[in-house]
């Protein structure tokens, strides 16, 4: 997506260069909407929702790079949903601020689970998905790194696909007298670009979003710059570079064997 935008800008700049200075004022304006839009979105980008949902249906929506916060009672199940697109490997992090030590009677176990748009549980490649918090500990840090999101996968595989991802946070083990105490939590998601290593052919017609039958839902739950069409990957660059290299090597090989135009033993005057 970003690449597409970059390409567009490049095309625009080329056009500007061709048409001369008259056009550039207009282009300066064209270029601004995207950055200014994201700048005004920046304040919101950090903020995210301040409430969490309590089920898949009510999950609070936030985008990657945003920080979602919530206050709840221990024992609650908190749900968020975020979009992840192909070519990224999302890592979900959560910081739980536990109730006051005075109110607690023992250690508790905290856990995040990530589900895809079909509510299938997704395994974590890395990260402390679950942690035991001793009685005197004030905060717990949890993390879960998903597998790289691919554009397509076999029907019967559970590979992550572009679409919505649900995060569920809860205390899985808790002394009974400790339930119902107030705690707060901060959840964030960041994606690492996996490049073309996981680029696959074929793509879902519609991302794996709950309620995907209605296009508005799909749009509403999209990442900030929309769902990618899936045609771009750095494989184009690799392959093109390979082609160039092959051409150069070909010229080299040709020069080596062809020799210098005419055989050297033949005198030019002959």
């Amino acid at each position: 997506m970003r690449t597409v935008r970059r390409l567009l800008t490049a095309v625009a700049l080329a056009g500007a260069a061709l048409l001369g200075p008259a056009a550039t004022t207009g282009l300066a304006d064209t270029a601004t909407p995207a950055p200014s839009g994201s700048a005004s979105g920046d304040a919101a980008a950090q903020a995210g929702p301040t409430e969490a949902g309590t089920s898949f249906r009510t999950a609070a929506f936030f985008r990657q790079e945003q920080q979602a916060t919530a206050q709840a009672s221990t024992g609650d199940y908190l749900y968020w949903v975020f979009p992840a697109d192909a070519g990224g490997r999302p890592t979900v992090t959560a910081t739980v601020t536990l109730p006051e030590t005075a109110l607690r009677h023992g250690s508790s176990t905290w856990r995040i689970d990530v589900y895809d748009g079909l509510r299938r549980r997704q395994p974590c490649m890395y990260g402390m998905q679950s942690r035991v918090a001793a009685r005197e500990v004030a905060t717990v840090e949890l993390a879960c790194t998903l597998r790289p999101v691919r554009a397509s996968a076999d029907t019967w595989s559970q590979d992550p696909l572009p679409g919505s991802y649900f995060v569920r946070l809860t205390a899985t083990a808790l002394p009974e007298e400790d339930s119902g105490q107030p705690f707060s939590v901060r959840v964030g998601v960041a994606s690492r670009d996996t490049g073309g290593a996981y680029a696959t052919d074929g793509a879902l017609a519609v991302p794996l979003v709950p309620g995907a039958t209605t296009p508005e839902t799909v749009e509403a739950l999209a990442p900030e710059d929309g769902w990618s069409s899936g045609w771009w990957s750095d494989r184009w660059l690799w392959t093109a570079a390979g082609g160039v290299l092959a051409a150069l090597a070909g010229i080299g090989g040709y020069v080596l064997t062809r020799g210098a135009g005419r055989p050297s033993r033949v005198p030019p005057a002959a």
Partner: protein
Amino acid sequence: MITRKRLATGACALLAALTVGLLPATTTATADSGPAATDSAKEPPKVELVLDVSGSMRARDIDGQSRMSAAKQAFNEVLDAVPQEVRLGIRTLGADYPGQDRKRGCQDTRPLYPVGPLDRTEAKTAVATLAPTGWTPIGPALLGAAEDLEGGDATKRIVLITDGEDTCAPLDPCEVARDIAAKGIHLVIDTLGLVPDAKTRRQLMCIAEATGGTYTSVHRTKELSGRVRQLVDRAADPVVTPVATDGAERCADAPVLKPGLYADRQVIGTHRWYRVDVLPGQELRASVSVSADRAVNDDYGVLLRAVTLHGREIVRGSEAGDGRTDVISTGLRYPKKDDEEAMDDDTKPAAEPVCLQVSNSFSAPPSVKTTPGMPVELAIDVVDGPGSASDVASFGLGRGWWLLGALALAGFLGGLVWGWLSRWRIAVWRTH
């Protein structure tokens, strides 16, 4: 998709810029389209606050004041902050009968303020008159509250605030809550215990669990008002309500589901069938979640299978887990291939009925009632099928140093051969 739209918008903008020089703000519309409220034009949500006014509310252990005055103070704050669209009602339990007759004491629940558009002053005045009096008939109060909220398709929420366990056995409020939830009226009960003891806590947690609600224990006034306000706000959040359906024992009798969200009940150890019609070239997406709304054993699972009419399993989704959980869920997708023959015939392609079987492997201790069944939520989507791939790699493109090496080598060898050929040609040309 957005990309294409954006490309188009970008192209338009470019064109405008090049021709006019100054451009109209075409891109602003697509810049930031946040998640729109999905169901805004719906019935207003209904909330009923159920307040315990039993004698024990006199105890002075919340921030040095009595539980009753803490509750009143919290109510005042909450009433000020109730969102405009919420229809709020207040019901009391144990507010009127101070005597010792258990039978009368256990019927002592009445609506203090009817569910409807909120008149803040009136509601506050009504709350101010309350004084701790009688018994704690939680079960009857919940039944009454469910009746108050009855009707309509709005989201409904009961917020129960109490400081003691139900004193009116044998009507177990937990069973009452489960029965209310089983009516399929999308009612959630949240419970708040004021300085609760172990038995109260267990009972309130059971009530909350049975309806998918939450439990909070309160030790401070601020916590109480903050939490109640949060719960009332939650009720105001727009949410899609599932449609009740009734799965069948066999696929042949199964209800045919259109894309949407469905709710059903499933008794432990049984399975249910549903049917979805899928046209060639479409993709079926189904997800199911079974809620653990009662005390179940620690290991459990769920299985969702897509089966043809003839009993061949197409694809399955399964999940198992252990420990404390609210739901267990799984999903599957089934892209049905384009029927090429039918397309040649120019006839309308026939939809394939796909049978969906939902089964669970929960188990419960013998003391736990298995009826009504556990809540099942089924989400069905039918979308266009995925683009077919001739190669696993993206467009058959390659990547990596081996690829570069291989291409370079091939190019080099090609160059060598070409060079030889041309040298040989020159030699041939020379000799003639």
